[in-house]
């Protein structure tokens, strides 16, 4: 699943478009506001869905090698978070939907049946 498909289906705003945006496939998704939970996930090609807009969300994504962070509920993003996303080249997107709605729609995108 390409990040572009998620952006189009959910009506996301792309805050920062990283190098992985057009090239990498998302194969695993974790939805969590607890970075400790994200850090125990042992999967690659990851998308992180969260309602925690913080610098450490970006740092955590960088450490686990996630392709992108999707912040739900149109939460406003601190400027430091955006600049860190640029610095570490982590794609940062904003969804107008709730976390549950975002997850459902991405789930359908991944498993169309």
């Amino acid at each position: 699943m390409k990040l572009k498909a998620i952006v189009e289906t959910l009506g996301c705003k792309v805050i920062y478009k990283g190098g992985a945006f057009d090239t990498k496939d998302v194969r695993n998704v974790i939805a969590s506001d607890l970075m400790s939970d994200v850090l125990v996930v042992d999967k690659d090609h990851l998308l992180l869905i969260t309602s925690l807009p913080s610098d450490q969300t970006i740092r955590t994504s960088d450490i686990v090698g996630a392709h992108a962070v999707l912040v739900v509920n149109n939460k406003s993003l601190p400027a430091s978070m955006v600049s860190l996303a640029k610095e570490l080249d982590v794609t940062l997107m904003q969804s107008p939907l709730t976390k549950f709605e975002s997850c459902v729609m991405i789930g359908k995108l991944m498993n169309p049946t």
Partner: protein
Amino acid sequence: MKAIPVNPEQSPLVILDLLFKLKIKDVMSSPVITAMRKDPMRKVQYLMRDNRISGVPVAERGRLFGIVSINDIIQALDGGYSDDAVALHMTTQMVVLEEDMPLSFGISYFEKFKFGRFPVLNKENRLVGILSSRDVSASLLVELHNEYHKLEAKLPLAAIKDVNTITRHFRVERFDFENAGKAAHAIKKILSEQNYPPALIRRVAVAAYEMEINLVVHSLGGTFTFHMDPEKVELLAADEGPGIPNVELAMQEGYTTANDWIKSLGFGAGMGLNNIRRNADEFNIQSAVGRGTTVRATILLPSERDKPQPT
């Protein structure tokens, strides 16, 4: 075989530069062992034997008259005229060098004239030295040795160190969330540059990040050290307190002493220490209340052979 196996026209620039920079007077043997015209050939023979040389210029008060080579001596022995004066049998058709000529000139003379040595004169045409191929080889070796040292000093130190081990120290302050993760990111970058598999890089990065977060959240501040050699990565977090009263309890998943502020940042779920242990091949924690805590995690690296080649 060439007398001097260096081409004074087609060599690396460092050599060409040396051959031009060095003058004959820098390389020649001086003072010179000489004979006088009236000396018997036998005396020159002894001079050669005692000084282990194969050519003796004939000169008086700096003025050069000729040269006697070992070949002339052999012929004198053969012809039975070793008691004759040198003046009768010396070579007078000579090729000489001037002391201010560049060494490249001297080398080309060895090729051109096939002599084993050349007398060296100064501007006043006085004999000041003698140049043999041995003098050239020895001085070139010394000069190349010096040049090599200079070139080596210019190499970036990191590039040499990277071959074997890399060590990085990071200072981590209490509650400094802004910088937590910088060390882990730097470590991730080092390993990525060396083409280790992504899964292994993630294990090291996650362990390092959890250790940094622990230092920020729980300690009064401390140091974080990354050390790698070809076999393993070692991560060491050492803080200055307050220490953990019950390490066994702290290791239990879900047990936490983190406050709400830390939890609001997405941490402090009581999972960090376990996650470090899970990602490490060796894990060790030591703590003393009032003194501090040391956490060490070792991750073994695949051998060079197993390492994927860059694509």
